[in-house]
């Protein structure tokens, strides 16, 4: 598979994660790749998919070329079914109405914990990041899909700070901590689709994207990651999928 790719890494992320979404689901989505992927899913195979935005929006319909820059602005409400206070849209997660939380990630570890708060020691951080936003709530209260670039510095053995809990220390530690619902479901990268071992809750490769070899994933992951010998392969992005992405994001704000 050395043929020239007709899509960017971001488009690959959007297509691969969009395919995981199912018709009829309610998806709590961040802007960027998650929003693009959810919109793609709506237009390709999941017309009954509902998007929720943290700003308080239920079931918006993205207008091509007018992608919102955050989930908390009026553009997010275009052709929405409902607008709610922020706290109430987040409470939908706690009540159990949401099937999937879907966000990007800055740093993730072996057990799917995400860090968006501190690089280095939180007491004296090298970098203070913006923080959790709704990330902690979403990952605490529902099943999660994370879409992110596959880089060694992002895939670490243990995050510096657990902002959004995955499986904490693996095994039953998540439920033991009091988080009785939800958990990390899939991590979608530009190299692979990753899941978590049913028992140990360690991240593992489920499928490799076209043209990607197992070594490439290992090289770009900061911990030992299990890859089955006869690992599955994803289908490359299809023309109709790429066409939708380019229609929705003609300026390539999120897919450059």
């Amino acid at each position, binding site marked *: 598979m050395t043929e020239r790719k007709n899509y960017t890494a971001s488009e690959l992320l959007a297509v691969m994660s969009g395919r995981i979404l199912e018709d009829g689901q309610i998806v709590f989505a961040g*802007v*960027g790749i998650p929003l693009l992927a959810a919109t793609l899913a709506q237009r390709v195979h999941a017309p009954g998919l509902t998007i929720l935005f*943290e*700003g*308080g*929006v239920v079931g918006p319909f993205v207008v091509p070329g007018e992608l919102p*820059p*955050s989930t*908390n*602005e*009026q*553009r*997010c*409400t*275009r*052709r929405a079914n409902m*607008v*709610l*206070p*922020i*706290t109430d849209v*987040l*409470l939908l*997660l*706690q009540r159990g109405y949401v099937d999937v939380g879907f966000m990007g990630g800055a740093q993730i570890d072996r057990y799917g*914990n995400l860090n968006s*708060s501190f690089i280095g020691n*939180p007491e004296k*951080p*090298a*970098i*203070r*990041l*913006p*923080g*959790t*936003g*709704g*990330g*902690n*709530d979403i990952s*605490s*209260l529902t099943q999660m899909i994370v879409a992110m670039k596959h880089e060694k510095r992002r895939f670490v053995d243990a995050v510096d*700070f*657990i*902002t*959004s*809990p995955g499986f*904490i220390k693996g095994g039953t*530690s*998540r439920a033991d*901590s*009091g*988080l*009785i*619902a939800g958990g990390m479901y899939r991590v979608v990268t530009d190299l692979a689709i990753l899941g978590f071992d049913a028992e140990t809750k360690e991240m593992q490769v489920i499928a490799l994207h076209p043209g990607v070899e197992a070594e490439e994933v290992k090289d770009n992951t900061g911990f030992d990651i299990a890859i089955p010998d006869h690992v599955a392969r994803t289908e490359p992005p299809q023309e109709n999928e790429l066409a939708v992405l380019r229609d929705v994001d003609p300026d390539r704000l999120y897919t450059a």
Partner: protein
Amino acid sequence: MADRTIVTPHLELRRRTAERDRGLREKVMSLEEAASFVSDGDHVAVGGCTISRTPTALIWALVRAKKKNLVISRSITSSEGDVLLGSGVSKHVITSWFSQGIVWGVSKVMRHYTESRKARFDEWSHMAIGLRYRAGGMGIPYMPVRSMIGSDVNALRGDEVKEVTCPFTGERLMALPALNPDIALIHVQRADAYGNAQLDGLQFMDIDIAMAANRVILTTERIVSNDQIRRAPDQTRIPFFTVDAVVEVPYGSAPHECYGLYEPFFDHMDALAAQTKADPEKGIKKYLDDFYYEPSSWSDYLDRLGAEALIDASRRGRSIYND
């Protein structure tokens, strides 16, 4: 300062509320008069979220009045947080996410002040902030919640959160402490002279903030008659008796957006981000000079944004109703 962030005992909360003049009375005043309701050291809750319905004009007035040691809380904190740190008005921000906005990357101003420990940024989950205001507005001292468990976000909060057990199911939950701000700053599309406010579109946490706070300063794009309010009482979102001051301020959220009226002033925000990225401290100081200290009035501030930008933001803002 720290004691401002824990739970106000119920009888103390009631005492403060009982002292307020909650009668139906006109309370229209200037930005400067309204700003005088804020005392140094107050816990100030900021309405809106990120770059939407931010009470920019009130923050502008607080900066110009050289307030000190304000503890700021907000659902998500954007460039107004950089302004509050850079001006020295606040050294303590309580929020769930702090940066100008995703598209502008991590705020260098926030990083500069927090990494050097010149300012404190207490991080709570977004729903936790919201439920803290909600508990405060409901008159209960805590709210049980199922998030902010198992992570380092709650671990870092120490005694500010407590584990509780449901007396019916035995389930373990986190207790979030009620938050009753000393004062709330809220910008709305329209309100009457008594402070009855009607909001369009996104409400964010503004209603809970208004109910929880001990005082509310309202800025409004326009003041409408009480008769107009009374013809659609089911559209009122903030009741007059929570409000202590009403100020009419057109474009009161600029350069952020106000739903249905104007979208963010993106070019202005781009320039601010570029300027603070180059040098956080100097960049924000220059911004404060240009837009906060030098203008002779709010109109002068708007002049500096420029008529073309005002018209463009308004055209985009009103387009939400073009369907």
